[in-house]
């Protein structure tokens, strides 16, 4: 068989991505049809920048989900090596050094093979899954921590603020890479420190929700007990499973090397979120509706969580998008330095790192993951920009 021409490669990739196109078209069609009823999300479809950003983000989200969770899209297993495919260029027909290839196997390496003879295209699409399953959740946890600490720091000020701000600045004074090198190593996993850190960091979402319900419903004990009870039950179960790997039911667990990556990323992001929330809180707390709540004798957590927090959601949503992007970059950095994830992992950072070593000769192993990462982060930034612009309008 002859190698494919570039046109063929593009057509075949496009065909391979068919489920993604279908999902994208459906999303856009539905969203544009109902955009007037969808609030801020709907307004996004008035802004070309926002739409491009959203499209890029959803492209990679769908790609990641279909490839990682449903085994669609990808053409070969991400770990299968074929010695005869080492460093072969894009469109090379699939061969194996020993034995005949499985007749059902996809006949080409669409974007070529890497230095171990693995399929670059498949590794790139599965790399999206590596990002999708960590970045949004790590950002979410960072937000929970940052909000739970930033609100009281900004609202009360004083000594509490001084101490918390000092801690935040302390973490921010660390060069991120040094922190990663110190935290994300097999030796540190041995000591169990990531588990303790996870134990502290992951308790914040539970605290956050309990405070949220309690402050809102403390006047109606029955409702309050129901909400708080459910939160504590579900929260503790997930918490035991995720942080301590001790789920009594044995359903929830978290691989330790993924946990350390997760914890490190949350740890690095939380102080920035803290600073943003603190600043916004200091601004909003001078508003009259906050004073009105104070003069009704509302508790401080009610004021912070129900009077202040909903009114800073605009900037926080925008920052959330940016933060997912930044987390993606951080995950890439970890991969680039070979920290945390297993060396075989198809994540973009590791693939770029492997590919760069032969860069002066072969471009194709390093470029696809680099461009993928760039386009996802760019999409998130454009999305944030679109959201910011639309939330400021009217």
């Amino acid at each position, binding site marked *: 068989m002859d190698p494919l021409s570039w046109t063929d490669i593009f057509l075949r990739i496009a065909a391979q991505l068919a489920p993604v196109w279908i999902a994208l078209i459906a999303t856009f069609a539905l969203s544009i049809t109902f955009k007037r009823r969808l609030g801020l999300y709907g307004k996004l479809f008035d802004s070309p*920048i926002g739409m491009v950003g959203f499209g890029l983000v959803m492209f990679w989200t769908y790609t990641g989900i279909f490839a990682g969770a449903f085994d669609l899209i990808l053409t070969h297993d991400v770990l299968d090596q074929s010695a005869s495919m080492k460093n072969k260029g894009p469109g090379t027909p699939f061969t194996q050094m020993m034995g005949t290839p499985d007749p059902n196997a996809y006949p080409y390496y669409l974007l070529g093979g890497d230095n171990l003879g693995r399929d670059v295209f498949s590794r790139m699409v599965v790399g999206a899954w590596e990002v999708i399953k960590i970045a949004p959740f790590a950002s979410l946890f960072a937000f929970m921590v940052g909000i739970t600490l930033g609100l009281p720091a900004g609202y009360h000020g004083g000594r509490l603020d001084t101490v918390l701000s*000092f801690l935040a*600045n*302390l973490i*921010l*004074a*660390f*060069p*991120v*890479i*040094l922190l990663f*090198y*110190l*935290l994300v*190593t*097999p*030796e*540190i996993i*041995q*000591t169990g*420190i990531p588990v303790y850190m996870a134990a502290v960091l992951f308790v914040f979402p539970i605290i956050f929700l309990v405070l949220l319900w309690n402050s809102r419903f403390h006047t109606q004990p029955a409702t309050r007990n129901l909400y708080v009870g459910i939160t504590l039950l579900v929260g503790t179960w997930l918490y035991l499973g995720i942080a301590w790997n001790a789920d009594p039911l044995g359903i929830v667990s978290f691989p330790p090397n993924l946990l350390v990556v997760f914890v490190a990323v949350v740890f690095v992001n939380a102080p920035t979120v803290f600073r943003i929330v603190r600043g916004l809180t200091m601004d909003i707390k001078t508003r009259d509706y906050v004073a009105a709540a104070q003069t009704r004798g509302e508790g401080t957590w009610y004021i912070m969580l129900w009077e202040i927090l909903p009114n800073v959601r605009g900037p926080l949503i925008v920052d959330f998008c940016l933060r997912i*992007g930044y987390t993606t*970059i951080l995950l*890439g*950095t970890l991969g*680039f*330095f070979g920290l945390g994830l297993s060396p075989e992992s198809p994540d973009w*950072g590791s693939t*770029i*790192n492997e*590919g*760069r070593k032969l*860069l*002066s*000769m*072969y*471009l194709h192993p*390093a*470029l696809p993951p*680099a461009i993928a*990462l*760039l386009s996802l*982060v*760019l999409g*998130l*930034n*454009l999305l944030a*920009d679109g959201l910011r612009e639309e939330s400021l309008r009217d």
Partner: protein
Amino acid sequence: MVTFILRRVGVMVLTAICLTFIVFFLTNLYPNLEKLAKTQGNFRMTDAEVESYLGRNGYLDPMLVKYGRWIGVWPGWVIEEEGATRGRCIEPGQPPEEAPRFCGILQGDWGFSTVFRKDVGVITGEKLALTGWLMLWVMVLMVPSALMLGVLAGMREGSRTDRTLSTFAITTTATPEYVSGVLFIAVFASSAVGLQWFKGTATGAVDKPTFENFFLPVLTIALYGMGYIARMTRASMAEVMTAQYIRTARLKGVSFPNIVLKHALRNALIAPFTVIMLQFPWLLNGVVIVETLFNYKGFGWTLVQAASNNDIELLLAVSVVSVVVVLVTQLISDIGYVYLNPRISVS
């Protein structure tokens, strides 16, 4: 003003102590020490051998004692072994009686690097000079172009220039150094594309930096930071351009170029100034990535070497340097802010 600086220096020292203690604590955890022992000795050491190696070199003393030694407030360890006296503060070949009791950073002794087998102070100095050179060029390239970009985009919000420049700025902030570096090497340095305008490695730049071997690393670092500063400047400029005093100036009959230069610029640069100063610590990350990518043996490269080999004292020195960089830039940004912004007076 003096009390302010003193307070800031106090905070700085406190931060440095906390930070180094954290680094110290993490690097002195037993699994890390075990790794150190094995890299120093050999990888087939038994647990007992590891333990005795660590004991002989004072690694098994209590954490605070060890930290005190590093600071220089606790006497260095001295072990008499097979008739010879070895100690933390005893230089090879020096009679034990002449050696000082304390040898920590307070005495100006930064310790000994186990990777490079050299004095940490010497290594840090050398590498900092190399990285300083890199940073200087990054700043020279990044700051003026970022400010210009931001001002041009922000002075007419929503115009075509603004859209184009903003998209460019967003793209650069979305491109981490390890992506842009790879792209640049691929396009400008690899034999596959064939342009080969620049060198894909900056190893040679350590001795003799030239445009050819130095431009790509500088561009790579500068680009990532540039977008961020440009966007801040743009936002600030756009906000200033809608301010009432700009309308006042316009309705006084001031021409547009003069409005931008005389009325808007100074106000618009207040916010980005802080950002530029706070970029320094952030650039440090870029430096680590770029120095690894381009194999430029500076401070960032040293950090990676020290960290991957658990070179405790070198890592500590690296952390001290970075915390000082971070906090000094913060201090400068605060002071500079006051001079740029007449609304805040210094009493």
